[in-house]
């Protein structure tokens, strides 16, 4: 990487380094996979990464906003589950139309997020705790609605789920991927080109200063959690498309995966520095690790965990070394 950039005579900005490093590592992993396993090199494997992780991507984008302000949102997994259960309940039990259910789910997600944001802003409860409460609350709601998974056979959902968008050759993506990419682009735009987005960064840089600079920090904080709640709800809906089911056990531990993706993507957990694009790459890293293991297909359960951890380690350490050396 170092030599590559030097040849071009292009010095990447310090803050872009983690992203470039991650990208290079991803390409390396892909090349390695394609050389080692048949069928890995087919483009569909890359597209499947997006198809399989579309919902996670949306959730992680919301999480990126929160982490950029220096906060954290532990409730995302539960809100995802709640969204799938509420969709199931409304469509299967109460016979609602898909669109009405979708609207309600998104509103619920946003409201839950706003509630947590309000706890954080008005009562100065630490984000970790406030969203942990949200996590318990949303999961609890799931169980009260149903302890059993709904199988969703709503025709609209089925069509949305099974529509494949061909990309030429044998390649295709799903509608979820399109939704996820739209969310990513919107987030990139909001963070880079709107006053709100820059306020998000400034809060992460120094919340006290941001307040003294006269920025609307309170409103922004609440908004950030609202966005995360909304994204989780949307992620939940994509999961409904993915699995056609509403299961109260969905998304257990998802918050950690999302946080990990964001942080692997180069965002600093204390806030103020990072990019949505990094988050996309973070998801890809986690996805490709899993794909490599699946293609290998010889690992038993515990070796799967160990190798996942080891690959994570390799990725993170290489990323770290690359960014450090070029400094």
């Amino acid at each position, binding site marked *: 990487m170092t030599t590559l950039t030097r040849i071009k005579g292009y010095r990447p900005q310090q803050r872009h380094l983690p992203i470039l490093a991650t990208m290079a590592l991803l390409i390396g992993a892909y090349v390695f996979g394609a050389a080692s*396993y048949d069928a890995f090199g087919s483009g569909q494997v890359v597209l*499947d990464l997006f198809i399989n992780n579309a919902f996670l991507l949306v959730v992680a984008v919301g999480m990126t906003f929160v982490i950029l302000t220096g906060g954290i949102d532990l409730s995302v997994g539960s809100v995802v589950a709640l969204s799938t259960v509420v969709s199931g309940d409304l469509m299967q039990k109460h016979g609602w139309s898909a669109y009405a259910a979708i609207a309600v789910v998104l509103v619920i997600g946003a409201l839950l997020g706003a509630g947590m944001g309000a706890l954080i802003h008005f009562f100065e409860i630490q984000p970790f705790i406030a969203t942990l409460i949200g996590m318990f609350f949303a999961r609890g709601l799931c*169980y009260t609605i149903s302890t059993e998974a*709904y199988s969703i056979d709503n025709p609209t959902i089925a069509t949305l789920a099974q529509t494949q968008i061909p990309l030429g050759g044998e390649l295709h993506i799903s509608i979820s991927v399109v939704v996820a990419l739209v969310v990513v682009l919107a987030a990139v735009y909001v963070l880079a080109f709107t006053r709100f987005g820059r306020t998000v960064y400034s809060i992460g840089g120094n919340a006290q200063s941001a307040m003294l600079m006269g920025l609307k920090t309170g409103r922004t904080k609440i908004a950030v959690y609202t966005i995360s709640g909304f994204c989780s709800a949307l992620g939940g809906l994509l999961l409904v498309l*993915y699995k056609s089911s509403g299961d109260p056990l969905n998304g257990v531990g998802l918050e950690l995966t999302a946080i990990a993706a964001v942080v692997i993507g180069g965002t600093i957990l204390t806030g103020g520095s990072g990019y949505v694009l990094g988050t996309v790459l973070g998801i890809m890293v986690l996805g490709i690790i899993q794909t490599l293991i699946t293609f290998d297909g010889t690992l*038993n*359960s515990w070796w799967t965990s160990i190798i996942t951890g080891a690959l994570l380690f390799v990725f993170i350490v290489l990323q770290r070394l690359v960014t450090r050396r070029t400094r």
Partner: protein
Amino acid sequence: SGGSSGGSGGAVTLGFAQVGAESGWRTANTKSIQESAKTAGIELKFSDAQQKQENQISAIRSYIQQKVKVIAFSPVVESGWDTVLKEAKTANIPVILTDRAIDSPDKSLYKTFLGSDFIAEGKKAGQWLTKEFGSATGQVNIVELQGTTGSAPANDRKKGFADVIAADPKYKIVASQTGEFTRAKGKEVMEAFLKSQPKIDVLYAHNDDMALGAIEAIEAAGKVPGKDIKIVSVDGVKDALTALADGKINHVVECNPLLGPQLMDLVKKVAAGEQVPARIETQETEFDQASAKAALPQRQY
């Protein structure tokens, strides 16, 4: 490793997407599948989903990419498989379900189901109870240790049991709490039950591990498990059979994880295009003290 692909050579390639390794039962299940694949000469592509349906789906997708001959998997949950199974169908790869069923109305998505029926297991436990306490007068106080809230075995074993005992009002579940399928939680919850419930006649545990934990709580409270409090549980792991042989548990309903050999037979048949029955139940029994003693020496897990 790697580099081998499905269709090549004579060996049949089987892609198996396991739920995870969440319990000893599951590990025995995995082991049985891996070993019998070896003996049957089937090339096994194995993946562990770490209890996540998403992971299972993506594993199945990758099997489709790798063009394996047959796909088998133990569904994490019953619903949500239509999309990916349609992809498999389009790719002409037959699918076998193991251990748990799925609830898709489209039965053409999979060739067959091989596994157990959790509701039936709950029912068996209930039937044992009604036999055991059939002659008892007065109320029979039951405490129940549920599995992980929301999971299919917990839901079904609870339901099957409740259906049977509902027939007689003298059976009363006085306390029911989740023990999350673990010994530690089983013990912790039982400790609390023993304090909040003045009289407990029977403990029904959704799996053996919770029953084993509860036994320790009962002993610590100065009571005799199997006598003061009768215990019935599901699964049939070695430790539970030992406890059963010792009289600490009264009845165990088996849920057999060793379906590897049966599965490999099916895989070969399906790969050869033979017809197979749509549903195959694994061979399962129930254990009492005598049969536990007899079965113990050969118990592998």
